[in-house]
C-alpha cells in the first residue's frame, strides 16, 4: 500500500507494525519488500513524495567545512527511490580483502567477511538488473602484471530507479505500508534508554504523528543516518548511539581524481588495435592493485581507469612518437596550463591523447566526519555540516596509482604519462570541484560496523550498540569502502539484514 501523510492516514499508521523502516532508497526498498514477502507487517517511511520537490530537498541543505565538496542537498535525492534516482548504475562486489584487517590501514577490518554477502549476490543483481559488458584491456593488452590486475564493473542499465521499478509492487503489497511525505524528526527512547519507544514523524504542514513498531531501521544514507542520531539528543545529550563520540566520524568517499595525462604511442600495434575498436568497447578498462602490492607498498585499494580521448588523439602520421614525446616533455608545463578547467576542456582542447582517472578507497579516519551545523531546518533540527578530510595515506595511494599507470605504459612502450602538479606536491593538496571530479556521491562509514562499541556504532547485525531495537541500513555501516561503487554492496547488506530481522521476529 502506498499512501501520503498529507491525506488522512492516521488510522493506518496508528497500528503497531513489526518493523518500521525510514528511507526508501537502495537500502530501504529491498529490505521492506523482502520482509513484507515474509509476511511481516512493515511500515516504510519516505520523507519526500513520488517526485523531486524543493520543499523536501531543502531539508538536505547544509554546509561544508572540510575539503571542497558537493553541496549536501546536491549529492542526494530526497524522494521515493532515494538516491537511486540519480545513481550511474556502476555495480561491483567488494573484494574479500576489502573486509579484512590490514596492518597498514588503521581502523580496517569488518566484523563480517565477503562470504557473508555472497549468498545475496544473485538477488542483488536481479534487483539492480545488472549486466556484464565487454571489457577492452588497453593497459595490460590481455597480459599479466605483478602489481595490477584487470577488473570489471557490471552495470545497471538503464540505472535502476528503485522507486519507479518497485512502485507497483509496493502499492499492491498487503503487508507493506509506504507513507510518503513522512519526515522522521525525532526518536523517543524508553525509560532505560536502551530501546526505541516510538518515532516522531512530521508532514510538511507541521503536523506530528507517533509511529510504533517492534523494530526500527534507519536507511537515510551515509550523511543523514548520523545526522538523525545526533539530532535525537533530548534524552541522550550526545545523540543516540553516540556514547563514544563515534557517530558521524570516519566519513568516507571514493576520491575521484585525474592522476595522469599522457601520450599514446600510435605506432604500437596494441594501440592501433584498440583505436580501431568500437566506442562501446572503450569504457571499462579498470585496473586494481593486487593484494601483495597493496601490502608491500602499504597502500589502499584503487580502481585505475584508462580514458582515451575520442579518436585516441590520432596525430599527424608524419610526426613520430619520440618526436611528439620530446615536445611534450619540454613543454609540459605550458600544455598543462592549456588543460585548465578539466570539466570544460578535456573533451575538445586537451592536448593529451588520454588520461588516467583513479577512484580510490579512502582510509577510515575519525577526523573526516559528519556533524551538526548551527542552522536549523523547518522541523527544528540542526542542519548537517560535512567535514570531509583526506590524509597522507589517501594521497600516497593516488600517487601510486599514477606511477603504476606510467610504469605499464612505459615498459610496454604503449605511451608515456605525466603526473599533475598537485600529485607531485608533497603536501595534502587536492584539486577542487572546479578542476576535477573529486568524489562520487558515495557517503560511507558514519555509523560504522564493528565488533565492539569501542570501535563502531553498529554490530555485525547492523544493530546500534546499546539500543536493542534500532538498526542502521545502507552505506553508513561500511567499515571500509574498497574502491567499488557502494550501491551493489548496500543492496547485498540489506538483503542480509532482512534475513536477520526475519529470524529475530520469528524467534520472539
Amino acid at each position, binding site marked *: 500500500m502506498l499512501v501520503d501523510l498529507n491525506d488522512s492516514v492516521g488510522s493506518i499508521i496508528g497500528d503497531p507494525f513489526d518493523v518500521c523502516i525510514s528511507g526508501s532508497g537502495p537500502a530501504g526498498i529491498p529490505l521492506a519488500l523482502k520482509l513484507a514477502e515474509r509476511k511481516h507487517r512493515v511500515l516504510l517511511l519516505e520523507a519526500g513524495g513520488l517526485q523531486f520537490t524543493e520543499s523536501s530537498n531543502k531539508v538536505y541543505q547544509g554546509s561544508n567545512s572540510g575539503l571542497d565538496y558537493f553541496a549536501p542537498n546536491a549529492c542526494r535525492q530526497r524522494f521515493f527511490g532515494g538516491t537511486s534516482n540519480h545513481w550511474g548504475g556502476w555495480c561491483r562486489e567488494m573484494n574479500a580483502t576489502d573486509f579484512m584487517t590490514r596492518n597498514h590501514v588503521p581502523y580496517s577490518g569488518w566484523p563480517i567477511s565477503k562470504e557473508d554477502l555472497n549468498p545475496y549476490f544473485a538477488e542483488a543483481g536481479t534487483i539492480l538488473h545488472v549486466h556484464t559488458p565487454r571489457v577492452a584491456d588497453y593497459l595490460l*593488452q590481455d*597480459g599479466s602484471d605483478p602489481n595490477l590486475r584487470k577488473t570489471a564493473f557490471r552495470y545497471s542499465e538503464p540505472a535502476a530507479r528503485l522507486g519507479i521499478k518497485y512502485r507497483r509492487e509496493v502499492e499492491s503489497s498487503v503487508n507493506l505500508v509506504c507513507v510518503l511525505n513522512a519526515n522522521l524528526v525525532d526518536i523517543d527512547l524508553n525509560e532505560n534508554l536502551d530501546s526505541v519507544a516510538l518515532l516522531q514523524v512530521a508532514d510538511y504542514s507541521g503536523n506530528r504523528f507517533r509511529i510504533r513498531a517492534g523494530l526500527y531501521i534507519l536507511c537515510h544514507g551515509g550523511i543523514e543516518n548520523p545526522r538523525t542520531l545526533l539530532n535525537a539528543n533530548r534524552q541522550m545529550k550526545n545523540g543516540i548511539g553516540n556514547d563514544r563520540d563515534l557517530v558521524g566520524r570516519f566519513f568516507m568517499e571514493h576520491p575521484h581524481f585525474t592522476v*595522469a595525462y599522457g601520450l599514446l604511442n600510435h*605506432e*604500437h*600495434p*596494441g594501440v*592501433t*588495435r584498440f583505436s580501431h575498436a568500437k566506442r562501446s568497447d572503450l569504457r571499462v578498462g579498470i585496473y586494481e592493485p593486487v593484494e601483495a602490492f597493496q601490502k608491500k607498498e602499504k597502500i589502499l585499494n584503487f580502481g585505475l581507469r584508462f580514458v582515451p580521448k575520442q579518436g585516441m588523439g590520432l596525430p599527424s602520421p608524419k610526426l613520430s612518437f*619520440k618526436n611528439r*614525446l*620530446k615536445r*611534450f*616533455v*619540454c613543454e*609540459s*608545463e605550458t600544455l598543462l596550463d592549456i588543460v585548465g578547467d578539466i570539466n570544460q576542456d578535456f573533451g575538445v582542447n586537451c592536448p593529451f591523447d588520454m588520461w588516467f582517472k583513479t577512484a580510490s578507497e579512502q582510509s577510515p579516519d575519525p577526523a573526516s566526519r559528519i556533524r551538526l551545523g548551527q542552522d536549523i531546518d523547518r522541523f527544528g533540527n540542526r542542519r548537517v555540516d560535512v567535514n570531509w578530510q583526506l590524509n597522507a595515506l589517501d594521497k600516497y595511494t593516488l600517487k601510486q596509482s599514477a*606511477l603504476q*599507470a*606510467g*610504469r605499464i*605504459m*612505459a*615498459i*610496454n*612502450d604503449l605511451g*608515456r*604519462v*605525466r*603526473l*599533475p*602538479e598537485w600529485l*607531485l606536491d608533497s603536501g595534502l593538496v587536492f584539486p577542487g570541484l572546479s578542476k576535477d571530479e573529486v568524489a562520487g556521491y558515495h557517503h560511507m562509514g558514519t555509523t560504522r560496523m564493528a565488533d565492539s562499541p569501542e570501535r563502531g556504532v553498529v554490530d555485525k547485525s547492523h544493530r546500534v550498540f546499546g539500543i536493542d531495537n534500532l538498526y542502521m541500513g545502507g552505506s553508513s555501516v561500511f567499515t571500509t569502502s574498497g574502491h567499488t561503487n557502494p550501491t551493489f554492496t548496500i543492496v547485498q547488506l540489506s538483503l542480509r539484514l532482512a534475513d536477520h530481522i526475519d529470524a529475530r521476529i520469528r524467534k520472539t
Partner: protein
Amino acid sequence: MIHRREFLVLLASLTAVFGTVRALHLANKKTASVPNNPRLILHKGWVLRSDDPRDM
C-alpha cells in the same frame, strides 16, 4: 545450377579472402617488441624510459 569451373573459381576466391582476413587478424594481435626491464625515471613529472628524449 553452378558449373564445376565456376565452383572452383568461387572456392579459390573465398580461400584468398579468408586467408587475408586471418593474416590481418594475426598481425594485429602481435605486440611490439619491448626491451627487457627498461629503466624508468621520473623527469619533470613524466614517467619516462631512460632512453627517452628529455630536453630540446
